[in-house]
């Protein structure tokens, strides 16, 4: 393949990278320009990821040698269907997140636009790097780029965010260190850091205790970062107090990208015969998934704060995906990978709603949602779509990924997972019914029933939510619906091939 042909791949990472360098300097002179530059960079990234995905769909996996060095010695980007898909998800959600961030930054972080957008772009760069790289240690570096920027971004939220972010930093650093330790254990017995190379070298060493421990620590480390129960303790605080633009972006993406890493490690670096058959890591993982689903659901029920409730829903959703990965048959894995897309979309949607309510009502407790169907009918529609997707009502995308997860669970006779999924569906109904009730029923018993007039006041308020908030929200609900309606197109063209061949 001629070297210039795949240059577009590297743009995905380099565009936000260059923008992040330039933005702080530009911020001194023209604050407005930061926003446009950021959008431009992410847009380039988005296009690049789409083109890459198309290339992968047409020609199979693509490699990009950085510095022109061949893999075991140099670093490569290795893009197959799995990470092409995740990269599109990441760039797409980031694009929406950046558009959404405008008002939040202007209002809450005056004079720091440059630094904010720079960190935002670095976060995107880091996440994309994690997704694209084919080198275990390079992944760690990207992980740190993404983590450091997310610590800083989260810390600039409401009161309490500092401490939450600090805890996240401690736990996250330990997690990243464990990941690095695990990589070290693999390195000491194989001498390689390249994923593809490792997967060739490892089968000979599957009996080694070192490999086992290395694998375990990689999983622990990544487990912390993706907040898999019981390593999730940092997540609710961090994402609850973060600025709404940040949580709308970090919450859906960070955990999903880490799940991608898990899939990579379990099915590419190690082969299914090791992880699934020899040490049964996946079946253990699937039970953690079950626990996460149940725990996330129950904890979410007891929250009075909307964002915190969403955080526990995320914990549960991670359980869905991890469970699907753990079941480790093609159907469930298809569902899990597809759910990464759906979950990212619906979480970004709900966090957008939280941001809009925060913007209008200066709070994100469930009680702040009182009457939103009248006052902010637009946000209410978005909320409804997001909620339906989380519950898994067709024709939203959430239903179809759940369908595959359930189908896979039944095929594998993993009844615990199936039951947990179904219970969690019901819990989600209860969760959103609460918010829904608050938003929809404002009259209550005994209040005046002649309130036909209040129906009329809703029109003028719509304009108050700025354009930069509702454009991404509209895009995201359309995406949720389209992901559902065209799920076959997505599954047949890309997700299906993302499933490792060994299953």
């Amino acid at each position, binding site marked *: 393949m001629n070297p210039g042909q795949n240059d577009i791949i590297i743009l995905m990472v380099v565009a936000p990278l260059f923008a992040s360098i330039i933005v702080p300097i530009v911020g001194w002179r023209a604050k407005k320009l930061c926003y446009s530059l950021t959008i431009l960079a992410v847009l380039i990234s988005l296009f690049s990821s789409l083109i890459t995905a198309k290339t992968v769909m047409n020609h199979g996996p693509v490699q990009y040698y950085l510095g022109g060095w061949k893999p075991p010695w140099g670093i490569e980007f290795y893009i197959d269907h799995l990470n092409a898909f995740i990269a599109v998800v990441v760039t797409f959600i980031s694009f929406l997140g950046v558009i959404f961030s405008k008002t939040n930054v202007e209002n809450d972080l005056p004079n720091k636009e440059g630094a904010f957008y720079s960190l935002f772009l670095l976060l995107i760069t880091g996440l994309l790097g994690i997704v694209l790289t084919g080198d275990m240690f390079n992944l760690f570096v990207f992980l*740190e780029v993404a983590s450091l920027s997310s610590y800083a971004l989260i810390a600039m939220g409401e009161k309490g965010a500092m*401490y939450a972010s*600090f805890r996240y930093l*401690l736990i996250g*650093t330990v997690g990243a260190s464990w990941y690095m*330790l695990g990589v*070290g254990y693999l390195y000491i017995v194989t001498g390689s850091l390249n994923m593809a190379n490792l997967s060739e070298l490892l089968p000979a060493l599957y009996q080694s205790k070192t490999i086992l421990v290395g694998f375990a620590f990689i999983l622990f480390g990544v487990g912390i970062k993706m907040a898999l129960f019981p390593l999730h303790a940092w997540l609710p605080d961090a994402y609850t107090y973060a600025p709404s633009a940040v949580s709308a972006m970090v919450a859906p993406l960070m955990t999903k990208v880490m799940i991608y890493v898990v899939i990579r490690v379990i099915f590419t670096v190690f082969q299914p015969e090791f992880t699934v058959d020899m040490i049964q890591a996946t079946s253990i993982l699937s039970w953690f998934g079950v626990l996460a689903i149940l725990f996330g659901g129950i904890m979410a029920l007891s929250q009075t704060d909307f964002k915190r409730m969403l955080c526990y829903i995320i914990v549960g959703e991670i359980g869905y995906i991890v469970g699907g990965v753990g079941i480790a048959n093609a159907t469930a894995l298809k569902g899990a990978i597809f759910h990464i897309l759906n979950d990212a979309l619906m979480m970004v949607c709900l966090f957008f709603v939280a941001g809009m309510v925060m913007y209008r009502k200066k709070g994100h407790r469930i009680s702040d949602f009182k009457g939103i169907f009248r006052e902010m009918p637009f946000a209410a529609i978005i909320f409804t779509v997001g909620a339906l997707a989380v519950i898994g009502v067709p024709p939203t995308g959430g239903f179809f990924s759940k369908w595959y997860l359930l189908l896979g669970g039944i095929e594998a006779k993993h009844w615990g997972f199936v039951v947990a999924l179904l219970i969690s569906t019901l819990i989600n109904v209860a969760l959103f019914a609460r918010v829904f009730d608050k938003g929809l029923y404002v009259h209550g018993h005994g209040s005046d029933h002649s309130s036909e007039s209040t129906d009329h006041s809703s029109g003028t308020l719509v304009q108050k939510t700025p354009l930069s908030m509702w454009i991404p929200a509209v895009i995201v609900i359309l995406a949720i619906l389209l992901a559902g309606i065209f799920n076959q197109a997505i599954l047949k063209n890309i997700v299906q091939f993302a499933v490792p061949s060994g299953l």
Partner: protein
Amino acid sequence: MGDLAKEFVTTYNYWVYIILMMIGLYAVMVKNNLVKKIIGMNIVQTAIILFFISIGAKRGATIPIIAHGHNGGEHAVHAADYINPLPHVLMLTAIVVAVATLGVALSLAIKIYQEYGTLEEDDIRTQTREE
């Protein structure tokens, strides 16, 4: 028992780093003062750096700078003569990461001190709970 002794002799330096790392981990989890936690975190990172560096060691080899610099073509270079450079490179990165994390952690600690007036974790917890 003999096995254990032999194992200890061949891998004792790894054991040392493990102990060091566990000290750090314990500090992160148990210490009440945030700065002590940060120190614990740094100990964990340093321990891992030690671990990687010891991977690079090679008996009978010297530092990875090729003697007689540019005349390398005339002198055959034997891999056995130089220690493994890769872990050193990796650890340069890891050190930088550790420093960066430390910087951010300290900034956060300063902000927390400004917000709560203390760096003791239980004080912060009581303050958050009272709200």
